[in-house]
């Protein structure tokens, strides 16, 4: 067996691996500041570096067995890394994440076995399986389940919000937010573009998964009370765009999906890292207790603002560029007689609008608004985090701008288009640079008008209601967390939210209920009475007699 049969270096894997290294470096730098006072740091950094190496190996693997070895080991590393958190539910979350990921990995083995039986090879290049038999479809679904679980698409998404809440922030920024997205979508692209020949039905299936992920997760995000958990739901929602993009099946949509994968990794880890900075300084991520941090932590605020504009798809940031490509891909599917394109488009745009809405709430609750008393009167006044923490944040925010403004010249030309390998035709062009100039001009004019207004010297004072200053009356304070709570009261949505709160859509909770139900029944049968057990033996023997001697 030569090295060629085991590893392969094509543009797609090289592109993904470059960013794996990039995010690992970012995370390690950030951890130097964030994790400074934690215990067991040697194992922490060991696991981080192992994750880096194993992910690289997984991306370059050209043999399905080899791939699944590395891929499965990543699940274990994720489990161990989440375990560094010190929240009360951390261990339960680590367990849940690993059961979902490890479980789908087991199904991947099934898929790989099916591929081997169908084609007689484990080599990944050169495979081109048509989805026309049950075995092929089953194999695709098994492998896709692994990719979905890793990336956090529905219905295997439930570990992502939990992990976001309970794991140490650098770990969340590193794994669920960036690396697992890169790997999961890389593998989805690998199986959808290279290993299998997609057909209409399977593409539609992907687009359904994508659209549902986008809308459902963002609806959950709207009503969260925890900064990191809210971001976790957005991590799920954004995966929907990538799956949708790959599901379109045309070059522009796929390019958009991959580009969105990259962009999402950038701004989502930026968001988590800024969120971590807030957590580091205030000691909480509860939105009810935060507020007014913009003045105290300006760098964090700017980084967070840029990343949240990017995730909401506001031009000229990178999130807009990739969403725009995905929209074009969806419209493109109409040409193949796909009449459902309208639904996907609406889902994607609606999701984008809700994303913006929930980030309005988030920014208000964390950085604007009134500071909470406990936060304000803390012993040490809250100040900006140290450079090992803000340098990664600023780098990521800078990339958000860079990839948005120079969209064709840098990311698309250097990474995405070579990875696709097909010519991509843009049906609606977006001149990023001129648009940026116009936008910047608009903003500058706005600032000038604001400054002119200030020049008149109006009287500034604190906010007060009914003659009393708001800061004196804590219950008058608006935290912003309640912004969208009313949507939980609307007809059918009320019902869905109630089910969601009962964890009805959580595949893990449903699975464990079923398992323990069956377990209860079996334990009832095993009553420890000797004659019963002997009777089973005899009964078993009688059945065997009947089968063999009838």
């Amino acid at each position, binding site marked *: 067996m030569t090295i060629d049969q085991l590893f392969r270096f094509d543009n797609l894997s090289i592109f993904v691996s470059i960013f794996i290294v990039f995010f690992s470096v970012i995370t390690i730098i950030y951890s130097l500041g964030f994790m400074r006072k934690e215990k067991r740091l040697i194992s922490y950094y060991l696991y981080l570096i192992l994750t880096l190496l194993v992910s690289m190996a997984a991306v370059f693997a050209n043999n399905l*067995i080899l791939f*699944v*070895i*590395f*891929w*499965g*080991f990543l*699940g*274990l590393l994720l*489990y161990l890394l989440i*375990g560094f958190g010190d929240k009360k539910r*951390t*261990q*339960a979350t*680590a*367990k849940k994440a*690993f*059961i979902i990921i*490890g*479980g789908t*990995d*087991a*199904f991947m*083995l*099934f898929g*790989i*076995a*099916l591929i*081997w*039986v169908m084609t007689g090879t484990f080599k990944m290049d050169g495979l081109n399986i048509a989805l026309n038999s049950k*075995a092929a479809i*089953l194999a695709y679904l098994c492998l896709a389940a692994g990719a979905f679980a890793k990336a956090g698409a529905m219905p295997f998404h439930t570990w992502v919000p939990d992990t976001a809440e309970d794991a140490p922030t650098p770990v969340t920024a590193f794994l669920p937010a960036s690396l697992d997205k890169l790997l999961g979508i890389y593998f989805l692209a690998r199986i959808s573009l290279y290993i299998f020949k997609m057909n209409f039905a399977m593409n539609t299936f992907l687009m359904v998964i994508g659209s549902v992920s986008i809308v459902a997760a963002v609806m959950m995000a709207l009503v969260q009370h925890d900064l990191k958990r809210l971001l976790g739901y957005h991590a799920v929602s954004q995966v929907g765009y990538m799956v949708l993009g790959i599901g379109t099946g045309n070059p522009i949509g796929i390019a958009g999906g991959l580009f969105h994968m990259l962009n999402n990794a950038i701004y989502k880890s930026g968001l988590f890292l800024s969120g971590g900075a807030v957590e580091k300084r205030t000691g909480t991520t509860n939105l009810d207790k935060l507020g007014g941090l913009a003045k105290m932590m300006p760098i964090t605020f700017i980084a967070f603002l840029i990343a949240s504009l990017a995730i909401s798809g506001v031009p000229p940031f990178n999130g807009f560029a990739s969403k725009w490509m995905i929209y074009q891909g969806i419209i493109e599917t109409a040409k193949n007689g796909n009449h459902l394109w309208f639904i996907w488009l609406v889902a994607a745009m609606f999701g984008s609008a809700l994303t913006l809405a929930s980030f309005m709430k988030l920014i208000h609750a964390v950085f604007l608004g009134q500071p909470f008393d406990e936060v304000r009167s803390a012993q040490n006044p809250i100040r900006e985090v140290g450079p090992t923490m803000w340098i990664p944040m600023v780098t990521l925010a800078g990339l958000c701008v860079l990839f948005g403004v120079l969209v064709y010249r840098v990311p698309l030309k250097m990474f995405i288009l070579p990875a696709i390998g097909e010519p991509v035709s843009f049906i609606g062009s977006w001149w990023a640079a001129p648009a940026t100039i116009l936008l910047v001009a608009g903003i500058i004019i706005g600032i000038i008008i604001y400054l002119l207004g200030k020049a008149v010297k109006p009287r500034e004072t604190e906010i007060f209601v009914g003659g009393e200053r708001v800061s004196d009356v804590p219950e008058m304070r608006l935290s912003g967390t309640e912004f969208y709570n009313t949507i939980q009261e609307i007809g059918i949505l009320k019902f869905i939210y109630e089910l969601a709160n009962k964890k009805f859509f959580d595949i893990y909770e449903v699975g*464990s209920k079923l*398992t*323990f139900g*069956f*377990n*209860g029944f*079996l*334990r009832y049968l*095993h009553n*420890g009475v*000797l004659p*019963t*057990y*002997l009777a*089973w*033996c005899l*009964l*078993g*023997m009688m059945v*065997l*007699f009947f*089968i*063999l*001697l009838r």
Partner: protein
Amino acid sequence: MTQTTALNIIPLFVVIPLTGSFLISILGRRFKALPDLLGFFATLGSLLAAIAAVWAINSYGTLVYSVGAWKAPIGIAMVLDGLSVFMLVVVNLIASAVCVFSINYMEHYTSKWKFYTLFLLMVAGMNGVVITGDIFNLFVFLEIASVASYALVAFGTEKHELEAAFKYAVMGTVASLFILLGIVFLYSFTSTLNMADMASVLAGGKSANIILMVSVLFLMGFGFKSALVPFHAWLPDAHPSAPAPISAMLSGVLIKSLGIYALIRIFYNIFGITAEISSILMFLGALSMVIGVFLAIGQWDLKRLLAYHSISQIGYVILGLGLGTPLGILGGLFHLFNHSVFKSLLFLNSGAIEYETGTRQLKEMGGLIHKMPVTGTTNLIASMAIAGIPPFNGFFSKLIIIIAVVQAQRYGYAFWAVLASVLTLASFLKVMKYAFFGELKKKWEKIQGVPAFMKISMISLAIICVIGGVLIIPTAREMFLDRAVDVISNGSNYASVVLKAIM
């Protein structure tokens, strides 16, 4: 080593542990250090002999030793072929690891010498079952091992231990009786007790209903010994009640050498496998696999949870072996090897926990990895191995089994195998969560580290879990696993090969 020397290795597998057992029983009470030393050297000697035997069959092929120079089929023959060498390595490897562990662990029981006497007797019985070529002799060794294990389950002499041992003894005796009945029928039908001779008689004659009846008796009897559902109910009582090293032996090797080995030897080599038996084995395997894991996941007693997992993992082995394709057999045997390593390691870990904290209840533990880092790490490794997480050994054998099952177009079984694997992962993450991770409970703050010999034993088994995957690298596989696979997949050659080796 010449062929004669190689032949002289064969009886050592019974002689060494039996002598050790005898010497300990008469001298052990007087010399305190003797049981430990003799136990260790007897199992180590057997292990070295087993490794020498691997080399011997690679040089000389199947070897037959005639006991007392009486030629078979009149005398008793001992047959050393690929399958028995494989089993001997497994049994003696685990036995030596367990022996090292017992040096410290058995300190908190009285009369250590009785323990070692019974322990070596059990090892002698298992080695005998594996090495013998005579079916009545197989029964005798099976009873030696079984009776020793009944006594060892009761070794703690607490109430629940005695109860478990009583149940185990009663049910085990019933199963043994059915096995004996089967042997009687077989003897009356073929007029011989030598297994190779019996196989050639059966191959020549027409198939008779009596063979089917004997098949049922053996399926029940040996199925009981290997704890296949629905003959499994003794196991979750008996295995947890024994002292931890014995639990490791029972789950790790006893159910395999008395149960699976005997089933495979008889159905593949003596009767010749039929499609019906094959599907029955696969069905029972899949049933045990699923029922076992569903029972395990809800347990809060650590050792009981592990015991139920033995049922489930045995299901995988039987599923692979019952499939009958070379790939399936390879997967089954490899899983057998892996399971004995990681399951005995898990039981030893549970023993280490019980040694330090005195409890087996998961809910009472918590955060123990802070105080017992070695145990925590080895337990994590073994848990990942049993759950089939790469790159640990269990992953490779499960992968081979799943591929083999899919290759045979048995998609349903493949699905259940995958599902059982997911639930296995879930239940071992539960163990890790409740026992080792999280906050250290106040009452465990004063516990000491685990003694050195226990650590050595656990670490060496953990190393095998980590590097166990190398056994499927072609060169290593040809030496060890493929020899055993050949014996099973060319099952009907057994008679001619052995009879030729006798001449």
